[in-house]
Each structure stands twice: as C-alpha cells, then as structure tokens.
C-alpha cells in the first residue's frame, strides 16, 4: 500500500460524563514517518491515543487504518488489529512478575508457534540492539527507569509492528536521559522503518525527532504540519505553547 497516510482520524468525539474531551479530532498520521502529537496537560492526548489502539470506543467518528474503519470492530477482530501496533506506555507498564527476557518474549509466546530456541534468538536480538543483554534475567523492579523504557521498546518491537506508539516517552526522565530516549526513537524508526507516533509535551523531543507535528488544543487539532510550519505558525495559541517551553527556532534540528 502506498497511500502516504497510514492512519486517518475523522471527526473523533469522546466524553466522560460531562467532560467532553475530544470534540471532533481530524488527524492524518503518515506512513514511515515520526508523527508527534503535542498539547497541554489534560488536552486529551492520552485519550486520543487510547482510541487509536482501541483501548476505548469513541462516541463518534472514524479511525481509518489503511482505509479500514476500526471503530465498529468487535473485541476478537480488534485483538488481531492490535498486533499491528506496538505501544510504549508512559510508565513502561512492564509485567513486574516477569523477568526482562520474559517480558520481551511475552508477545511471541502468546501469538506465535515459534519454538523456544527461535524465541530466544529473536528476543536476544532485540535486547542487543537496545543494549540490554546484561539485564536479561533482571526483574523490572531492579532496573532504572531509562532501562525499563528500553525494555518496553524492545517488547513493543519484538512482533515487528507496523506502527509504534510512545506516550510521553521522556516524561519523568532527566534531560540527559530524555535525549537518549529521543535518539532511541529516531534510531528505532530508522531501524524498523514503520510508522511512529509520539505523544509529547517535551518540545526538544517534538522538534528533535518529529517529522510531522500536530497540536491538540481544546479537543481539536489546532495546527498540523512539518515542524518548521508549527514553529513559524502565526496562530497565537501555537506560538504561546511553543514559546512557553523555551525552545527557540535555533534549537530545531541538529
């Protein structure tokens, strides 16, 4: 399929009680690129992402994955669709009753009929790429936050998904670790060649790795385009959001 748009979101609405969080989101996510969604705290970024991977059903609207609307699908079909996504949660969400190796092997054990040897080979390959061979037998509770994030990336990648999603990958990390994660996102995208979606309010991440940026504001997409377009945007809301993070155009791409 050569359509440059991998996922198309149309008129998406989601409310919790009286709280109308998404109010008609229209968003294009581009194939093979790093798409970044920015927005203030509570703007609904995580809610949007939860609709994308069908963790929740939207009230209204369509989510077209390669042109197929996934909103009306039932749980059994969705389980199949979800395997096309890899998801790196904000707090990593590793299974804390399993070792690092078992965490990464989990999707393979669940969804493939591979033998133990082949699983071991694939898991170790991913762990090596991410510099985690040493941590193979450790429990998630015994490793640092940055390492946990890398394990989460390894687990998301092991099924070789088409789409890799990161929720606030640098939240809660120090600046140095944040830049390491940025590098990780970039090199991972180069390595696996799929579509990446990054949710962030870290402007360094946004303009450091983003190839396509969209801003969510008051339940709608306020602006979208190349990073340079957003930096040069005349929209006062966009300007204020970017300016208040202290990132100047000089910081844009290295």
């Amino acid at each position, binding site marked *: 399929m050569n359509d440059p748009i991998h996922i198309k979101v149309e008129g998406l609405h989601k409310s919790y009680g009286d709280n109308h969080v998404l109010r008609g989101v229209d968003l294009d996510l581009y194939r093979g690129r790093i798409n970044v969604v920015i927005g203030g705290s509570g703007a609904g970024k995580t809610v949007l992402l939860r609709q994308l*991977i069908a*963790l929740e059903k939207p009230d209204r609207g369509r989510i077209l994955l390669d042109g197929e609307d996934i909103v009306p699908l039932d749980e059994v079909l969705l*389980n199949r669709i*979800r395997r096309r996504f890899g998801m790196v949660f904000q707090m990593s969400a590793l299974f804390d009753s399993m070792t690092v190796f078992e965490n990464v092997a989990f999707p393979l054990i669940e*969804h493939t009929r591979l033998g133990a040897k082949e699983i071991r080979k694939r898991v170790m390959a991913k762990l090596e790429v991410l510099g985690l061979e040493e941590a193979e037998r450790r429990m998630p509770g015994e490793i640092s936050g940055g390492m946990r994030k890398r394990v989460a990336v390894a687990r998301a990648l092991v099924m070789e998904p088409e789409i890799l999603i990161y929720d606030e990958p640098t939240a809660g990390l120090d600046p140095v670790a944040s830049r390491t994660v940025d590098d990780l996102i970039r090199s991972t995208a180069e390595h696996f060649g799929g579509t990446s979606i990054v949710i962030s309010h870290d402007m360094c991440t946004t303009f450091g790795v983003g190839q396509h940026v969209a801003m969510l504001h008051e339940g709608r997409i306020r602006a979208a385009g190349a990073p340079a377009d957003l930096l040069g945007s005349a929209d006062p809301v966009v300007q204020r959001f970017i300016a208040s993070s202290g990132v100047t155009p000089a910081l844009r791409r290295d």
Partner: protein
Amino acid sequence: MSDEATKARPPVPEREALPARPDLSLRLLRALVRFPVLFFAGVGDLALMTVRTLGWMLRPPYRLRLLLQAMAFIGVGSLFIISLTALTAGMVLALQAVYSMRIFQAEGAVGGAVAMSLTREISPVFTGLMLTAQASSAIATEIGTMRVTDQIDALTTMGVNPIQYLVVPRVVAAALMTPILCLLFTFVGMIGAYLVGVVWMNVDPGQFMDKIANWVKPSDFRQSVIKALVFGTLTILIACHQGYSAKGGAAGVGQATTRAVVIGSVMIMVCDYLLTAAMM
C-alpha cells in the same frame, strides 16, 4: 427521628459557620438514596464481569499453566491457615457440645453434632472467609497494581484479553480448589473434635464414630461442597473485579483490597443464608 430526639441534641456551633449546607434531612435522604444506587451499580458491574468471564472461559486459548499456578496459589497458599482454623474450630465445637450435652448424659453424640455443624455451616463459611483473607486480598492487590500501572492495558494492546488472562484462571482455580479445601477443613476439624472429645473429655471412641455416621447424611456433604464452591468462586470473582476497577495509584489499590475483603466476607454471609434456606 422523633421531635424530642432532635430537640434534646445540643446545638453544634460549627454548623452556623459553614455556608449554605443543605439541612440534615436532605443530606440524610441523599445518603439513603446514594447507597442503594452505588450498591446496584456495583452489583451490575460485577454481573457484567461474571458474564465476560464466562464468555472468555469457553474461548481458546486455554492457559493451563496459568490455571495450575492459580490453583497452587489458592490451594497451597491457604492450606496452613485453613488447617489451623479447622483444628481450633473442631476443638471449640467439641468443647461446647460436650458441656451442653453432658446435662442430658448425651455427650456420646458429640462426634455427630460437631460433624453436622462442620459440614453444613462451619466448613464452607470458614473456608470462604479464610480464602477471602488470604487469596482475595492478594489477588485484588495484584490485579489492582497491574491496573494502575497500565499493565492491564499493555495486555490488551498486545492482543491478549486481560479477563481471559488474569480473571478466568483465578476464578476457575477457586471453583476447583474451594470444595477440596472445604472437605479438608471438615476432616481436620473432626481431628480437633476427636482430640477434645475422646482424648481429653473421655467420650467413648466407638460412640463418637458411630454418631458421626448416624447424624451426617450424604446430602450434608453435597450442601457443604455446593456452598464452598459458591463462596470461593464469588469471593475470588469479587477480588478480581475490585482489582480490575481500581484507580488512583497506590491508595486506590489499597481501597480495592479493603473492599474485596469486606464485600467478599459480607457476600459469603448473605449467600450462606440464602443457600441454607434454599437447600433446607
């Protein structure tokens, strides 16, 4: 509340300081309405969880390893506490029975009396309560922690249904293990009764055994097993449900655990009455 009762109360000084608080009767009414609403919402939620659990139970893959793990956790984990409470329960029941029956010189019947109350009531109820204390609390905490740290969502995004993966094995394990634990409770309880009745209080051992066979019917055992099955399955299902719907970090997990134990225990007592009435 009667007029006199309200008047007799000394005035509460802080009441005036608070701005526009609805008066007592209105607040009382609200609280009275809120409890049934919360109660029925909770029951509805639990029913939904039950239906989903049954649905996913029948669908492959069947995760035998997880089932065995859960059986070991519930069975082996509760073995010690169940044996201990069974022994003391049997001993105290025998003591009571011997003392009260001695009045009629009928203490020979102590074996039968204890066996009957154990099989019909004490064993299933205590097994259920001990399971609630031991297994339900642990399960609510474990699943609750997985919920608030997004591990449950992680399962879903990896195409693994969390009900099928987390709830089904635990509930099935409870259904299989509790009847066995209940029978064990009765057996150990009778050892306790024998120790007190025969060894200590000199009841004739032949009579002790005879009366057991006389008093306890096979239907009592059936009742025992059915009750245990219901109590065990119910309390573990409640624990899974509470953990599954936990929210709000570590504090939320703590609340879920408390609720699992409280609701589980209360439901066991309520169901005990209903089942006893139904099977009389």
